[in-house]
């Protein structure tokens, strides 16, 4: 049974510390894949200064857990870590960090890729982009829906 950890963080997400911790805890795994995502400072609407990620305490944590447990059941992994920000996130700050440890490199890649595709569409979060002179709620794109279909 894989070790699954999920973190919903209203404060800073420090991927470097999470990376170190995950690697130390999984020295017996042959393969570790990680993904780190940052808020992009540029969008079609102009420069973004920060995001507001609205969340539903309890339900949002559960959505991260559900996604991570689905990945653990689907892929031959030893450990998974999902850390996601909520609240106010500045441009260039880390918004998500995912790690997968496995004996097999393909399973580690696929688990991390799957986690990201599902998080982008199914994490119980509501994203608002705030920039110079604009602010808008963001909905998942057609691309996000296509990414998700890769796994069905």
């Amino acid at each position, binding site marked *: 049974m894989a070790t699954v950890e999920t973190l919903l963080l209203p404060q800073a997400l420090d991927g470097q510390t999470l990376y170190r911790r995950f690697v130390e805890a999984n020295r017996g795994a042959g393969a570790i894949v990680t993904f780190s995502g940052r808020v992009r400072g540029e969008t079609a609407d102009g420069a973004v200064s920060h995001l507001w990620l609205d969340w539903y305490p309890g339900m949002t944590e559960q959505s991260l857990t559900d996604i991570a447990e689905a990945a653990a059941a689907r892929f031959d992994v030893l450990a998974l870590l999902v850390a996601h920000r909520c609240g106010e996130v500045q441009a260039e700050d880390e918004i998500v960090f995912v790690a997968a440890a496995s004996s097999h490199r393909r399973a580690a890649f696929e688990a991390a890729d799957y986690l990201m595709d599902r998080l982008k569409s199914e*994490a119980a979060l509501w994203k608002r982009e705030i920039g110079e002179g604009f602010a808008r709620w963001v909905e998942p794109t057609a691309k996000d829906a296509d990414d998700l279909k890769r796994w069905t």
Partner: protein
Amino acid sequence: MQITVLFFGKVADTLGERQRVLDFADTDMSLFTLRQSVLGTAFASGALSRERVLMSVNQGLTQEDRSLQAGDEVAFFPVFSGG
């Protein structure tokens, strides 16, 4: 019966509030009726679209035919946008 209603994302923004505690004399009520009572004006004005508002009861996604009980926590919010 007392029902706590929560709003998130664009729904909270549109209503200008995040939480409302309601007390109904009626103890036999569906989520459909509650939604109409709380969001009917926003639907009518076009500020929100009925099709784009999701619902949960006690943190589980559900549909409008769900019947409510005293103490339920109901939430209205848009489709998730992920990270």
